[in-house]
């Protein structure tokens, strides 16, 4: 057998081993990242933890249904919904302070945009209803943003398939 063939076979075996390893490891790192979230608070640190868990979760290989193998999926969803609720609450508080403490519209808009970004990146549309104050967000959006309560997302891009 030629040297190049042997090298390819060895490389294939290595890739196979690493594939199996990375599938397992990607599940366990996601579980760990979710466990590390702990108590949900409206802080940058907590958001960072949730973001990491979301990133790892989204990177799970869909072809092996790895998302179904996440043990603490329920806790993960609860944490995301809770953070979304807090983000919307922060926007509502900012809106309330606008009249009481002189917050500018731009300040409130910043909170509203942030809340929308959190909702869109953490939740699927069917989970929106699970956020108890989601209606507040849409109401605030119609007041402060030009898109209104559109449900997020940028302008629609149309992809024409290749033949």
């Amino acid at each position: 057998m030629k040297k190049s063939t042997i090298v390819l076979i060895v490389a294939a075996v290595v890739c196979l081993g690493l594939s199996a390893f990375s599938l397992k490891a990607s599940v366990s790192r996601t579980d760990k990242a979710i466990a590390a979230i702990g108590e949900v608070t409206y802080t940058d640190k907590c958001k960072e933890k949730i973001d990491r868990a979301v990133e790892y979760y989204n990177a799970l290989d869909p072809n092996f249904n790895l998302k179904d193998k996440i043990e603490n999926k329920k806790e993960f969803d609860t944490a995301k919904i809770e953070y979304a609720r807090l983000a919307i609450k922060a926007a509502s508080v900012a809106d309330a302070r606008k009249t009481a403490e002189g917050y500018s519209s731009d300040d409130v808009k910043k909170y509203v945009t942030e809340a929308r970004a959190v909702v869109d990146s953490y939740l699927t549309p069917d989970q929106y209803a699970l956020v108890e104050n989601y209606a507040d967000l849409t109401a605030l959006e119609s007041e402060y943003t030009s898109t209104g309560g559109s449900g997020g997302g940028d302008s629609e891009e149309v992809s024409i398939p290749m033949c």
Partner: protein
Amino acid sequence: MDALLSVNWIALLVLMIALLMFKVLNRLAYKINWTFVILISMVMGAVIGIVFASENNSYLTWLGLIGDIYVNLITALVAPVILVSVISGLIALNDKEKMKRIGTKSVFWLMISSVIAVVITILFGMATHIGNGAGAVFSDIASVTDTTLSAYEEMGTSLDKIILSLFPTNIVGDLAADNIVAIIIIAVAIAVAYVNVATDEGEGKVKAFKDFVEAFKKIIFHVLTFVIDLTPYAVLCLTAVSASQLLSDKDALVQLVILVGLIYIVCLIQTYGVNALLLKFGAKVSPLKFFKKTFDAQATAFTTQSSVGTLPITIDRLIRKVGVDEEVANFSAPLGTTIGMAGCTCIWPILLAMFYINATGQNWSASQYLVMCFMCLVLSLGSAGMPGIGVVTAVSLFSAVNLPIAAVVLLIPINNITDMVRTLTNVVGASVTATVVARNTDLLDDEVFEKEEMTQKKEGQA
């Protein structure tokens, strides 16, 4: 750890397996017939595609890249190959009357092929009542957004646009954009001018140009052999990607399986039935032998889904294996990637339209069907043989006969799966036309056609 997990190891594993298969193919290329090598590479690709079928073809990223590189390489050669081949061929022919005959006969046979395709498609569509009871497919038609609709509407074309697009606007631009008819017109103009100047002022005045064209042609065809050598590897990669795509599109397929099946049946009848008759009675050659000799062009068309991309191989096989004279092969085959194209301009849009008409319970009159057929023939006068043309022809036909473009949007999931067989139909149609024209102009070398294929790799090359 994160770096290790960010690598798609399965895609790399697939690449290693493909490279091992390349080695096997390389060995086989020296031992067995080139046609079988291509066939084996298709089987290998299909196996890889099925085993590693994945969402968004994520495991076949590297194979897709190799396939795309091949398609880019071969497409890059299209413009120079056609330009120098047509100029060189027509200069060598040195007969303006014969040039005219080749041109008119090519267009005539390509259009005949389209007319037959239209008739067969309508007959099959009517006989099978394609689309009957499939109203559910269009139940979401109202949900197609305006943005999507306007994007598709912009792709539509009309008779004046088609005619205008056939003529050159900028020599460099047309060469860069692979505007085949425009390139042919430029080449014919240059060749006719050469013949006129050579006749009026003596060949010595323009001989340097002829020598340059001949030298350039030799070099460009040598470059072509390098790319053709890569065909089995590219076919393996592209087949793998297509097989995986097929499996991931299976949800869309379930609803539209009858439509996909009928498109395949009609295309294959046109490719191997109608064309066999044209070969038998128009070109007076054995159809079976012809299909065998041009098999690698067929395999390339099927896998690359690009008539223009396959052109260099088509021309090469017509000249070296079928025995079509260079002048005809270099003229008719490229023309067939713009005019004719029965698979994309006749069979596909008509079946989509009939599917929609029957699914929504409309009763069309004979005159409405006639308008549809006429529009298809107009489309077949000038459609670029590039990936994406199937969507353009379908949108154009639907808008011409007042059917909703949103229906095309809902049928697009089967576009990729059917494009393979449609491209095959287009390429075989163009090759057959070139052979028939060659026979009718006494430019078909029967000795080359009757010669048996060699088993050595070098014989399989250009």
